[in-house]
């Protein structure tokens, strides 16, 4: 399993202000699946996502990511685990404002110990993959929100993480940009075989789900069949970039 949650609960506060964000949640996700979590605000989507992304720990229960128990893992080890295995995308503020697009994308590689030149080389190919090859030298404030989200996807893919976690990735985008971003994520999911977790309010996102899960009051309700519809995805471009990336990864030793 890529991710396995066993009877996971998350409780914030105590006494009168006690809030149950997740209640005895169990979930098993196979590698390459695309899981979309939907539900109203406060239903526990982001909490679940943060636990899967190892950013948060449950109050009780077991969490295995790529077969590793991450609940009892020390914080230092968890940082390294996250760097290698999880790509994360927020709904906004995904890029460091004083770094260019390519520097932002290269950041996780440099943190992994890859030489700056090689990291920047891979960053440029990743930007090509997301259709931002001409924006490599731009700073976030010089880019539209759609471009910033695409650059953030490139950064999330930098260390070839087996798991990609996206929190409301389309909520700040217009319809066209949202559709383009979803097409990109779908292509990445298909070609990279990356396991994708998305929390969203946007029903359109369900189009790229292999599993659609509704959440309410910290509980999961899985849809029998996700309403998967074909997106006009740019498979050709992503596949071409994927080949280049593999060659660079050989150079880097990833």
């Amino acid at each position, binding site marked *: 399993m890529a991710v396995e949650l066993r009877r996971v609960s998350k409780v914030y506060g105590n006494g009168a202000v006690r809030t149950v964000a997740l209640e005895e949640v169990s979930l098993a996700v196979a590698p390459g699946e695309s899981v979309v979590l939907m539900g109203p605000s406060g239903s526990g989507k982001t909490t679940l996502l*943060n636990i899967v992304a190892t950013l948060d720990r449950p109050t009780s229960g077991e969490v295995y990511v790529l077969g590793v128990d991450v609940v009892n893992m020390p*914080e230092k080890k968890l940082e390294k685990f996250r760097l290698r295995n999880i790509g*994360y995308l927020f709904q906004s503020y995904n890029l*460091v*404002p004083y770094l260019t697009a390519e520097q932002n994308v290269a950041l996780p590689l440099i*943190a992994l110990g890859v030489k700056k030149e090689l990291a920047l080389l891979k960053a440029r190919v990743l930007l090509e993959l997301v259709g931002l090859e001409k924006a490599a030298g731009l700073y976030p404030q010089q880019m539209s929100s759609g471009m910033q989200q695409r650059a953030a996807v490139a950064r999330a893919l930098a260390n070839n993480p087996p798991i990609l976690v996206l929190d409301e990735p389309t909520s700040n985008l217009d319809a066209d940009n949202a559709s383009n971003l979803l097409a990109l994520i779908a292509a990445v999911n298909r070609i990279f075989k990356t396991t994708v977790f998305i929390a969203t309010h946007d029903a359109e996102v369900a189009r790229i789900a292999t599993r659609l899960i509704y959440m309410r009051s910290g509980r999961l309700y899985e849809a029998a069949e996700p309403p998967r519809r074909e997106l006009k995805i740019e498979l050709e471009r992503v596949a071409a970039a994927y080949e280049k990336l593999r060659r660079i990864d050989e150079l880097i030793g990833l």
Partner: protein
Amino acid sequence: MLALGDLKSRALRYLLTAVAIGVGVALLVALTAVSDATRAYVEQTLYKVYPADIMMYSDSINIPQRLVDLLQRNPAVSGAEGIIITTGVVNGQVVSIVGIPLRDVDYFAIDLKEGRLPSSGGEAVVEESLAARPGDTITIKVYSSALGGERTITVKVVGVMRSFLRGFIGAFRLNLVVVPLDWLQEELGAGPFVNAVLITLRDKGYVTPFYKTLKETFRDAQVYTQEALLNTVSQVFNALNFVFTVISAAALATAAVTTFAVMSITARERLREFGLLKAVGISSSDIVVSVAVEVALLSVAAGIAGAALGFYGATLVKQILIGMGVNFDVPIEFKLRYIALALSASLAVALAGAASPLYRVAKLRPIEILQLWR
């Protein structure tokens, strides 16, 4: 990459922080440079003025000249000079009259400004502070219990000497009148007696036993060693350095508080960024290191600028004081030690100021940061 990027994006704020640290460091370097220069100058001058290992002094002119001759014949002694040091008044101004043997006048390293050294009785070299010129005649009233009251002597000025320590500290303005010893003995009716003996020894190892012997033999006389005199000077400078240190510490503490405030604000502003970096998988230590590198770059720049500003500031202040007529002509020299002092002080100040914000950043878990702006 992160460190340089943030430094550029908050350039003005960091520049002002560097200025705060730099000013504190500059004050520290300036005060140290002035203190070093003054101490070296005073010690060097003292050695010139008092070029002996031991000095024996008596309030009355009662040390027989024969004792000086005996000391000169002692195999441990390389030189002994008997002199008279007394005080008098010229036109209401207190002067110090020093009688030195003409044959050894070079020994006293008189710093002549104009004229010449005395070569016969009644001739004198006077200190510039007395505002006399060669050719002038000075009448001095001399008081001495040994003489049984007041006596008047008249000298002809043949030379003017620079003030000891160039008179930059009032206490060293002695208003000296240097005259031949035998003439002074005659004028004062002191006979073959002196009241001070300067003794130079062949080996520094003889100083302590000689000092003890003289102390025990001449109980009425005061006996000083060169070392004790220099120690006294050192004590004065140590006290001065303490005051300087307190002033510098206050400036550096202000700089540390400024750094703390700036780094706290910056850390708060950058919480989102730190949360993002932590969520991406950048380790807390990498983030802390990147901020510490910023602080270190800032402190190195502030340290070097502070060292330069301090040194040139001290030199400039010296020139201004001289221009204002204050005699402060001490040689201020640049030493590599000042760079080390400036760098270590600025680094310590910057790290002290940044330590608490850095610790807070390191301790925050990504989820705590992300929840702050959710």
